[in-house]
């Protein structure tokens, strides 16, 4: 098979090919390494690990020959550079950790490697996961493989913070990738890049070894080009971990089996009216209508839902996440590891180290969080935001008495040009308006590509589920996927492939 035909396979297709010995894991991996080399201008990777990938692929072939293949054996994946990987530089896209090599492996990556996955490398993100464009990385902007048909010369953001993960999967540099989602960091970049991505219920995957941004919101998840691939990857990284006190000791359903033979007939799909925000572009509204119709056509029951407190999700999030971040990032002080800039005394060393080591967006959130937690402000900000968080969760739980899943838009726009919104943090924060409340409520959410807008850019839809009910989320997402039949390829990729 050619490189192109290999890199365009879904994971499920590739696993079938591997098991039928149509190609080896080494060949499959090499095709992706070559695609990576050809697409370096997208700046997706912070650290490429082709040597590790080829060694792991060879080991995978050996395992498969012995009939000991795991769930994802021989499947090359990209890993957001927020997961600690033993012996491989892990930077959080920051200067302060730009040479940090962990001596330990995150639970999520250990689990996926235990299923035979192959590591292509560590992909770019917004520094410490803070951002919606992958523009706040200390390793430069990652570019979206998609270009608009009206302004093909304008480079677009891939979304964020897991923009490296979404870009590599969209650009066929990897069939799947690991990401994390604190306020939309999987779902929004998946939407911008026209792929699928799921953030499971908070506590479904271990946070051990994931560099923390906001601990009560951070959750690992996956990117792939099909719902089934997402289910497969999610299954391999889920489960209780005694090393993470917030991971849940619950059995992990077989997400793949749950999809097979499932449909959305009689599924109650809630449409929350509060998601119809003022000034929402027509195309977003259209995609939402389309999605609603698709599910209805497949036998789902559409229910109108109200989530009265969801409008407070954005301010609540932008208090709570910075509060936690201001504390979580205190450990990066240059004392034990990471970059240190010596000053004349301890205080100056701290100041220089942190001033140099953190990107502006990170500094902004540390300052906001520090302020909000200060004596005299704590009740007005942190405590109030926690109360809102509870109300938002209560809203969702009430909604789930009337429906099984919710269908909503996922972003207020398609991917936008690099540099846009950069000087206006508030406008940038609005990017997360449809995704953020799920993190506050701890709910699973999934992005499925739905259609192209008038400029030829992908738009996604979001399915939101009950806590621990990823199975129904995946099933509804599969319904959308079938109806949408999204086959479009990023324009620049098409050009390159042709050339």
């Amino acid at each position, binding site marked *: 098979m050619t490189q192109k035909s290999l890199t365009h396979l879904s994971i499920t297709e590739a696993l079938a090919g591997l098991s039928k010995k149509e190609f080896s894991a080494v060949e499959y991996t090499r095709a992706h390494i070559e695609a990576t080399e050809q697409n370096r201008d997208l700046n997706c990777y912070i650290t490429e690990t082709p040597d590790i990938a080829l060694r792991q692929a060879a080991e995978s072939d050996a395992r498969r020959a012995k009939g000991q293949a795991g769930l994802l054996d021989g499947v090359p994946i990209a890993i957001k550079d927020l*997961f*600690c990987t033993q012996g491989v530089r*892990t930077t*959080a896209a920051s200067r302060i*950790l730009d040479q*940090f090599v*962990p*001596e*330990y492996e*995150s639970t999520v990556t250990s689990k996926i490697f235990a299923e035979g996955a192959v590591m292509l490398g560590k992909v770019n993100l917004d520094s410490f996961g803070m951002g919606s464009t992958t523009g706040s990385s200390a390793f430069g902007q990652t570019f979206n493989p998609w270009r608009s048909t009206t302004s093909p010369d304008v480079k677009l953001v891939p979304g964020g913070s897991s923009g490296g993960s979404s870009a590599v999967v969209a650009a066929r540099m990897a069939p799947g990738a690991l990401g994390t989602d604190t306020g939309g960091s999987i779902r929004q970049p998946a939407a911008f890049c026209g792929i699928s991505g799921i953030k499971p219920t908070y506590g479904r995957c271990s*946070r*051990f*070894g*994931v*560099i*923390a941004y*906001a*601990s*009560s919101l951070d959750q690992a998840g996956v990117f792939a080009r099909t719902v089934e691939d997402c289910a497969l990857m999610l299954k391999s990284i889920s489960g209780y971990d*005694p*090393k*993470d*006190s*917030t991971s849940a000791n619950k059995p992990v359903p077989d997400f793949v089996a749950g999809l097979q033979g499932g449909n959305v007939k009689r599924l109650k799909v809630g449409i929350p009216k509060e998601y119809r925000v003022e000034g929402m572009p027509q195309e977003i509204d259209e995609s939402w209508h389309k999605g609603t119709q698709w599910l209805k056509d497949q036998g789902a029951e559409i229910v109108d839902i109200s989530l009265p407190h969801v409008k407070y999700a954005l301010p609540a999030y932008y208090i709570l996440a910075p*509060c*936690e971040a*201001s*504390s979580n*990032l*205190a*450990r*990066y*002080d240059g*004392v*034990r*590891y990471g970059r240190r800039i010596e000053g004349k005394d*301890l205080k100056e060393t*701290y100041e220089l180290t942190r001033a140099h080591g953190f990107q502006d967006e990170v500094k902004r959130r540390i300052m906001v969080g*520090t302020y909000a*937690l*200060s*004596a005299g402000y*704590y009740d007005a900000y*942190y405590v109030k935001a926690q109360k809102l968080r509870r109300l938002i969760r209560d809203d969702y739980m009430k909604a789930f008495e009337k429906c099984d899943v919710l269908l909503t838009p996922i972003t207020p726009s398609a991917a936008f040009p690099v540099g846009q919104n950069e000087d206006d943090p508030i406008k940038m924060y609005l990017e997360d308006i449809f995704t953020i409340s799920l993190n506050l409520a701890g709910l699973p959410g999934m992005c499925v590509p739905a259609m192209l807008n008038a400029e030829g850019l992908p738009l996604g839809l979001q399915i939101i589920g009950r806590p621990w009910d990823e199975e129904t989320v995946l099933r509804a997402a599969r319904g959308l996927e079938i109806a949408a039949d999204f086959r479009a390829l990023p324009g620049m990729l098409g050009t390159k492939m042709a050339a």
Partner: protein
Amino acid sequence: MAQIIKGRTGEWEIVIGMEVHAQVTANTKLFSGASAVFGAEPNSQVSMVDAAMPGMLPTLNAYCVEQAVRTGLGLNAEIHATSVFERKNYFYPDLPQGYQISQYLHPIVGKGKIEIDLPQGDVKEIGITRLHLEQDAGKSLHDQHPTKSFVDLNRSGCALMEIVSEPDLRGAEEAAAYLSKLRMILRYLGTCDGNMEEGSMRADVNVSVRKPGGALGTRCEIKNVNSVKAVQMAIDYESRRQVDIIEDGGTIHQETRLWDPTKGETRSMRSKEDAHDYRYFPDPDLLPLVLDNAWIASIKQTLPELPDQKKHRFMQDYGLGAYDSGVLIAERIRADFFESVAKGRDAKMAANWVLNELLGVLNKDGKNLDQSPITAAQLGGLIDLIVDNTISGKIAKDVFADMYATSKDAAKIVDEKGLKQVTDIGAIEKTVDQVIAANPDNVAAYRGGKDKLFGFFVGQVMKETGGKANPEIVNQLLKDKLK
């Protein structure tokens, strides 16, 4: 018994509250599996969690929680079914996370009380405000390099219990008694070894002064007081300092002060305005700690008899005084030793021999009871010989000295040295007659009314018999014959 300071403007009362940090006796740290044993090579007991490496998460050590609950029960305190770990945020090189995981608004243990023992056997009840669990910081070493400071993280993450008292203490003596009693309770419970030299128990002392019965004064918190003696000295110094300032027309500012043991003074560390804003908030890495009532009850079942219970039992069952009981129960091993000696014997005699003889001589030699050359069974054997009249109390002291030197049984020493008491009335009567015959002047004087001379005759008889004559028989015979 409040300690009063006499100032120029009258009397002043000292008000003290204590915050004691007690390291939990446990093999591993509060939130990591690293060893928590004292005295290892610097940085040899540090896990990735303790060093706050990126992506590391705390996981609570159930045994430390059990120890805190046990301590709370030992302090007669309320155990909170739900408590919350919070982050106390501040930067320091020996604090790897940049925050200490502690409990703030919702501690694991609430209000309790203990009894402290004052001189003359008086007791006073001291309120416990709360006990909470928290992690210790590492240790900064400033004397290892001319320009750099070193950090040892072995202690980083070890479990501490912070035990806060009500401001019920009224002076250095009460503070010392409180600290000793608290230490005693923790050692009885086995939840802290109470070793102040190794820093496993540290005290911060809040001191203020006021006119007796008046409103509370402004307090100063004194840190770095690391022995019972230092607590007393620091309180004496600090209370006098505050009285002098107020009487000179000044005011006390709330601040943290450091005790300097070399200079014997407290000095300002930081004022209230400079106090850290710790920006406490619930640690999102840890769920609220929820305890099962049945589990708490099962811990209660395993509590040992505590010092105060033991003291009251000693007073009631053995008829001992408050003071003697207090001394006996000060160490669990001492109380156990006493009880084995007292078993089936005269308890007051047993207490007397343990306290006045054995502890006296051990103390003189700078030894602890567990180094005693005389076992409880042996000391009991000695008492048995006194009670069955084999030897007199006086001879017993000589035998005891021999036992202490040789670790031999009392009976064996009595046998070898022929110290068995003479109870043969005929033989004693003979000696009595000889003594009366040899001292006609004293006999006359005694009969003339000098009763005190009776002792002289007893002494002479004992001297002639080498101290072995039964004193009761000697007394009786002399009384009869000197009539």
